[in-house]
């Protein structure tokens, strides 16, 4: 069964043109990859398309794949490059929508709410809070945001994050610390110390 294999085994099979092994990898990383892109780009609409791009890139690059590092770090590296290109394109078009369409943002937040039975007022407050958090994260410099998303949400170790970011572990640690201190300042209205 493809599901019992390690990532590297599956990837070596993909290298030989095995579509079934590729589908198994997609199943394994689909959710985490889409959410990684979503948190890094703060753009829900583009996340799925970018995830497609990343998986296609993985498939195309399979013949050149060498199992030197963890597959996940290789995947996140491709995903972070694709996301960075997307963010740069958006900035160039001067239509970056961190705030986005307020109604759309509200919809997104509504989907995320676990408890649908809370009062409307509480819901609105919660939505606003989530919007502010997302805006604060989106406002971080790219490297800081990438380090934060990789370690906080994707559960990568400092070493793995350093491989993705192509820097040293202390540098990653510093990026995360600076991200937290920036967020602490920006979320001062939300975080009641």
């Amino acid at each position, binding site marked *: 069964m493809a599901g019992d294999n390690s990532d590297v085994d599956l990837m070596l099979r993909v290298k030989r043109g095995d*579509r079934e092994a*590729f*589908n198994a990898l*997609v*199943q394994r990383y*689909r*959710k985490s990859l*889409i*959410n990684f892109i*979503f*948190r890094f780009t703060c753009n*829900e609409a583009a*996340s*799925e398309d970018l*995830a*497609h791009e990343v*998986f*296609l890139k993985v*498939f*195309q690059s399979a013949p050149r794949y060498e199992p030197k590092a963890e597959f996940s770090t290789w995947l996140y590296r491709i995903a972070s490059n694709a996301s960075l290109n997307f963010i740069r394109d958006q900035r160039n078009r001067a239509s970056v929508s961190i705030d986005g369409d307020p109604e759309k943002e509200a919809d*997104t*937040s509504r*989907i*995320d709410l676990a408890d649908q039975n809370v009062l409307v007022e509480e819901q609105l407050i*919660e939505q606003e*809070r*989530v919007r502010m*958090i*997302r805006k604060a*994260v989106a406002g971080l410099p790219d490297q800081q945001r990438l380090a*934060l998303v990789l370690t*906080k*949400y994707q559960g990568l170790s*400092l070493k793995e994050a350093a491989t993705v970011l192509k820097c040293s572990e202390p540098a990653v*640690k*510093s990026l*995360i*610390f600076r991200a*937290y201190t920036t*967020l*602490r300042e920006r*979320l001062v209205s*939300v*975080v*009641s*110390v």
Partner: protein
Amino acid sequence: MDCRKIQDNLLEYQHNRLPEGLKIEFRHHLEACLECRSFLESLKLVDAELDRFGEIASSPYFDQKLNVRLDDLARQSWHSGFFQLLKQPYVFSFAFLFLATVSVWIGIRHQQAARLKTLEDVIRVQEKYLGSGFPTEVAREVTPTSDQHPDSTLESKTVQTPAGVEQVIPDQDRAVVENIDLLENYDTIKNLDLADSKASLESSTETN
């Protein structure tokens, strides 16, 4: 350990990434230092807020869309591979020469065929070179050689008429003259033509 070093490593402490010895040292410092303690609390609150970021679910058609794009990619790579191959000068030259040769050959065959649009044209050409009522068997016996198949005698560019006169066949008519099937059925065709003409004559006399 000073406050600066403690604060730089507070996230490690909070995420339980510090070695046990350092952890105890941190705990002692935090118990004594209010500033570092409040900084740690603020980081914990930021961490808790970040948990609210939420996540999204993939669409139910994610896999299908991906597979469609993969199929497109495979097709594109085949096409690009083919055109890349054509970009090689010698492959392109070979393909061009092959196509040119085939085109010229088809053109010549077409020109020959254009002159013989009906069965009458075929019979006319055959009668011209083989003579009226020239039996197929006679045609096959023209210039026979002992070791050749009877059909191969038709490969000659000349043919003898019943009168024994050798006549050169132009290249464009050779296809007709060499058409063995037609030659073999020549008598039958002629008989059919005669039968048809007789039948039409009879029917016309009956009507009269």
